[in-house]
């Protein structure tokens, strides 16, 4: 009895492990030692074996043989109960399951939350009835049938299932329309089944065939296919010429592809290995030849056996040399990447800039020096004697060309810019003058400049020389318009250089205006006189040169200074006015990167300040807000002003509508799951009958409610 008790207790303990939450019942029966909370079993240390218990069974006579046998079997089998998992593990498993469940539960909110986040405006409380006029059905839906007469009418209406509003057919009629006869349905089902089965067979077959790795098999297969195709094609030519043409086109395409690729050219890894083997192995040789044959076949031009003319053309083609068949250069206008280096640069404009001259010179210096001297001699013959010293200076400079100084370079570049400006000016002027009936001067000037273009000019003085050469021709032109001519002639000769600048800066030709009032109309002579008087008055202050000086000063200020870190080394002289060696200058004079080009680079008569205004910066956005990836996107998104100053009233209202609107005094309930799920289902499901009998409605509502309850229960259960 005691033993039995113990067994029971151990079972009980196990049970407790499985269901730890169940409250333990205290034993109330009498025993020798009874603890306050639990039975204190005597001798729990020594285990009870099954054999102990079964020993008695053998001895008892009442027990049937069958049970004895069963017990013996039980004893012999060594299957034991598995140990229950320990607490941590069970908890872990439980947590995992709970997590999955809750994620499933919570994730159904995900969509609605995202939707609300994205919404431009949220109006709380949600699910408000829209104000304003309602549809008749909506109004009637809330109305209950009360009087017996109404009930009678409604019963009649819904008894016959007549449509209440729009739909012409009754629901019954619709259903009957939709329904199919049984036989029809059966036939259709059978058809579908058959089709599905066939499809699956075909798929399985294709799969199997695709998996076959044997090359020979595929080869044979392909060959068969090709043959088949050729047969079909021959037929097609007779029966369906259009289709055949298309096939032909396809073939042509494959031919093109073949010609482009190196697939069968025996240039691959495999082919090379075969080539090595080919000496000794017949099969390898054969395989290679086959490949080449394949290439030949594929690249062969399709011959359309139609007219004699075509044939003759074909014959002609065959005699054409091989290079015709070389791949053509594909010049795709849309894809310039295909062009590669094949595009040839456009021929340079014929006029030679000073820079080009410079580069050309550097190529063959000696020749150039000789040419230089010659040219100088010519110049000297042409010009006055006072210019000679500068030229000599120039010649000297040319002779020690190797020792180029930075400053010098700067001079040259400055001249280059000036020169370019001048040229553009001239051309523009020329066009202007053609309009004004005078075109020779400009053109001649230009020609003059071009002919002089090869003189290497290294300083401003040289520039003056150039001007002197060019200018006289322009002045000699007799029939200039009054203003321009006056301007040109009245200028004293030593200001020629500035004259050019003037043209460069103030370009627009003035047009005289006809006036209605007599006294203001000035006679031509008088006008000229006046002009000359004005010229005299303003002879002193040269506005334009001042301006150009100012501009060059500003430009110079903007340029980064060269940092000179040269120091005299051991055994070298120190002091002022020394020229450190070239390598030192190269190494220790640090040039910083030039700033970006000035805004007024191409406007000779404008100075635009390059200073950054910091005053606006404090009001500007300096960090891109979240979704934007570059400044252009952000700037374009705020380019439309939202204020009422720039917009109509409706637009302003629309643009500045608040993100959240709450109704005054209304309680904002937290969102219920049913809310959005229901809204979805109603949106998805069609409309029911607009008007329902009171009882009907109640019944429907009842069912809905019960369904909801069920849902709730089930959710609670899980």
């Amino acid at each position, binding site marked *: 009895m005691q033993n039995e008790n113990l067994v029971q207790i151990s079972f009980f303990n196990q049970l407790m492990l499985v269901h730890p939450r169940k409250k333990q019942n205290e034993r109330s029966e009498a025993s020798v030692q009874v603890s306050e909370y639990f039975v204190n079993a005597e001798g729990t240390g020594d285990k009870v074996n099954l054999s102990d218990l079964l020993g008695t069974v053998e001895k008892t006579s009442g027990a049937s043989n069958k049970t004895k046998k069963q017990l013996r079997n039980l004893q012999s089998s060594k299957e034991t109960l598995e140990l229950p998992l320990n607490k941590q593990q069970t908890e872990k498993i439980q947590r995992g399951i709970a997590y999955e469940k809750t994620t499933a539960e919570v994730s159904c909110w995900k969509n609605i939350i995202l939707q609300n986040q994205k919404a431009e405006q949220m109006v709380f409380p949600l699910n408000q009835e829209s104000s304003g006029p309602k549809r008749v059905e909506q109004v009637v839906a809330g109305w209950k049938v009360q009087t017996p007469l109404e009930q009678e009418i409604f019963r009649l209406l819904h008894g016959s299932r007549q449509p209440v509003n729009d739909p012409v057919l009754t629901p019954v009629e619709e259903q009957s329309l939709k329904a199919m006869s049984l036989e029809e349905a059966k036939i259709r089902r059978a058809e579908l089944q058959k089709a599905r089965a066939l499809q699956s067979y075909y798929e399985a077959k294709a799969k199997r065939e695709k998996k076959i790795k044997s090359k020979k098999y595929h080869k044979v297969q392909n060959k068969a296919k090709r043959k088949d195709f050729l047969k079909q094609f021959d037929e097609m030519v007779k029966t369906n010429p259009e289709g055949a043409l298309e096939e032909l086109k396809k073939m042509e395409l494959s031919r093109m592809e073949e010609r482009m690729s190196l697939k069968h050219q025996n240039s691959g890894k495999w082919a090379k290995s075969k080539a090595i083997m080919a000496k000794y192995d017949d099969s390898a040789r054969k395989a290679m030849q086959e490949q080449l044959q394949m290439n030949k076949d594929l690249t062969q031009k399709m011959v359309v056996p139609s007219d004699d003319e075509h044939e003759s053309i074909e014959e002609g083609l065959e005699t054409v040399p091989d290079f015709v068949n070389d791949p053509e250069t594909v010049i795709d206008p849309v894809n310039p990447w295909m062009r590669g280096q094949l595009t040839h640069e456009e021929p340079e404009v014929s006029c030679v800039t000073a820079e080009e001259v410079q580069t050309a010179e550097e190529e063959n210096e000696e020749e150039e020096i000789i040419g230089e001297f010659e040219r100088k001699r010519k110049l000297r013959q042409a010009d006055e004697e006072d210019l000679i010293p500068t030229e000599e200076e120039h010649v000297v400079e040319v002779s020690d060309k190797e020792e180029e100084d930075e400053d010098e370079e700067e001079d040259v570049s400055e001249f280059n810019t000036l020169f370019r400006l001048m040229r553009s000016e001239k051309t523009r002027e020329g066009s202007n003058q053609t309009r004004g009936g005078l075109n020779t001067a400009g053109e001649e000037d230009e020609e003059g400049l071009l002919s002089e273009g090869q003189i290497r000019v290294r300083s401003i003085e040289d520039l003056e020389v150039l001007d002197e050469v060019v200018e006289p021709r322009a002045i000699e032109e007799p029939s200039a318009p009054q203003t321009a001519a006056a301007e040109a002639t009245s200028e004293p000769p030593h200001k020629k250089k500035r004259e050019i600048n003037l043209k460069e800066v103030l370009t627009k030709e003035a047009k005289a205006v006809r006036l209605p*009032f007599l006294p203001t109309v000035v006679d031509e002579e008088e006008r000229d006189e006046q002009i000359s008087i004005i010229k005299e008055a303003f002879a002193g202050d040269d506005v334009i040169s001042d301006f150009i000086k100012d501009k060059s000063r500003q430009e110079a200020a903007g340029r980064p200074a060269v940092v000179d870190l040269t120091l005299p080394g051991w055994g070298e002289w120190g002091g002022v006015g020394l020229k450190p060696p070239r390598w030192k200058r190269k190494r220790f004079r640090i040039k910083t990167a030039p700033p970006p080009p000035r805004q007024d680079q191409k406007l000779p008569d404008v100075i635009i300040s390059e200073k950054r205004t910091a005053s606006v910066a404090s009001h500007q956005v300096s960090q891109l807000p979240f979704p934007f990836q570059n400044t252009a996107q952000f700037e374009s998104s705020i380019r439309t002003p939202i204020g*009422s100053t720039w917009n109509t009233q409706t637009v302003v209202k629309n643009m500045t509508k608040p993100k959240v609107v709450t109704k005054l005094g209304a309680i904002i309930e937290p969102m219920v799951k049913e809310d959005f799920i229901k809204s979805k289902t109603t949106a998805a499901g069609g409309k029911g009958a607009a008007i329902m009998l009171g009882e009907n409605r109640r019944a429907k509502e009842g069912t809905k409610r019960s369904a909801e309850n069920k849902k709730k229960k089930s959710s609670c259960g899980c």
Partner: protein
Amino acid sequence: MLVFGFWTTKICNTRNCFNKIVLIALFSLTFHCNGFASIVCPDLKKILTKFDSPSRWFMLGKKCKVPAGARERLKEAIAISEAMSEHAQKQAARYDLLLPEDAGFLEGDEDEDTNTISQADIADAVDITSGSKYFNLHLSQFGPYRLDYSRTGRNLLVGGKKGHVACIDWQTKDLKCEMNVMETVNDVKWLHTEAMFAVAQKRWLYIYDSKGVELHCVKKFNDVLRMQFLPYHFLLATASATGFLQYLDVSIGKEVAAICTKMGRLDVMAQNPHNAVIHLGHPNGTVSLWSPNQKESLVKMLCHRGAVRSLAVDKTGTYMVTSGLDRKLKVYDIRAFKPLHSCFLPAGASCLSLSQRGLLSAATGEIVQVYQNVLGSNPVSKPYMAHRLRGQIWGLAYCPFEDVLGIGHGEGFTSMIVPGAGEPNFDALDTNPYRSHKQRQEWEVKALLEKVQPELIGLDPGQLSKVDQASFEQRHKEQIEALGFDPLAKDKFKPRTKKKGRSSAGAIEKRKRKVAHEDQRDEIRQSVQERTEREKELKEKSNEKKLGNKSTLDRFRK
């Protein structure tokens, strides 16, 4: 002679006026003058459909394209903003219909130049109220006169050189105040309302109220020669004989900036209504542009070979007209700083003024000439109107919202009728010529609340809506340093790994090459397409030219 469209007799529509879109833009919306004339069509529906694709006038900047691999949120943000701006443009275009008035014009008979029509003839031809806008004030004692119209166009302020200052409601000819300040008067200017005006006297700058009571004597501003008032910034800009350009904030009474221009005597001044930049003309033929935020000029341009005599900037801030001692009149595009055309006036123009609708008046000696279509690429040949006066002209100003040009000269003041000068439609919320006392008060409060800070003045009025590039780059660099990677960089294309040997190095390289230089490719493709189209067009044109003689069937062609 035909005189058309004096809108002055019409009944005004007051605060309910809807033309909110027609505003002098503080930021980037440009004024559209020519938009009105095109919309005189009874078929409303047609017009509305026309405006369903917003017209050019109302376009605000460039549309942003959604990049190919953009995130979902970015796509949404761009889509929303694009939809919004398109909606705004459409609405603006639709409301443009509701601007009721047309501008007037003057048309001569055959063989009759409009500039030979005298003012008296015009005054006789038009209705009585309009005719009464031509009048003379004979004030020979204290002349010559400077003048200024208030922003609503109702009040006129005249200041004689010898100290006579008067303000008049010029339409009713009601004299508000009159006084002699017993000092030389260099310039007069209305402040933001009709209640206050500034007078630049011999030594200091004075501010009076409309009854002539002296409110302030601003001794920080001495020897002022010219003044300009920036209405949206509440700034009074003054140019002095000592070469100083000073800004006075009239809402708080503080000097905002004092800039020494180092350019000598400053007696030529104009403001650009588009971006509130002050233009100064100098004796060395340059025109310089100034903002209170920079001690040096924003831009300096050489306009004339002699001194600059006068300046005017049009309302859209696109054109500048200058006249100089070299007796040339030049029109500049001040967005590009390039001259458009110039013409030679035999007498030279001493004063210039541009009307709201782009008529240019120039005072040449004793004659005032009005030019039409000056602001364009085609040069002018003859004046639209002309009027001869007695005495030297010292001040010229168009009256806003009226077809009237006010002329201050040695013998007093003349109001001249110039049909087509004024903007026919006003914005009742901004400048309402018919506003009541109460409305004016309300407007003043609102305008003060919307006051634009002087820091925002610059060449580009849309600067505020741009990202501060310098600090953005700086910050971005720091971010890259901190993170170790560029968060804004486009992530590199990583080809997916494929099986069956299709992910060999060569195959991967091929796949990479397919998407390489995607952005450049787009650009190139576009440019090439454009070029081909252009060539096509040229070819067609040349073909047409070649053909020359058309066949009879050509008439059915479009």
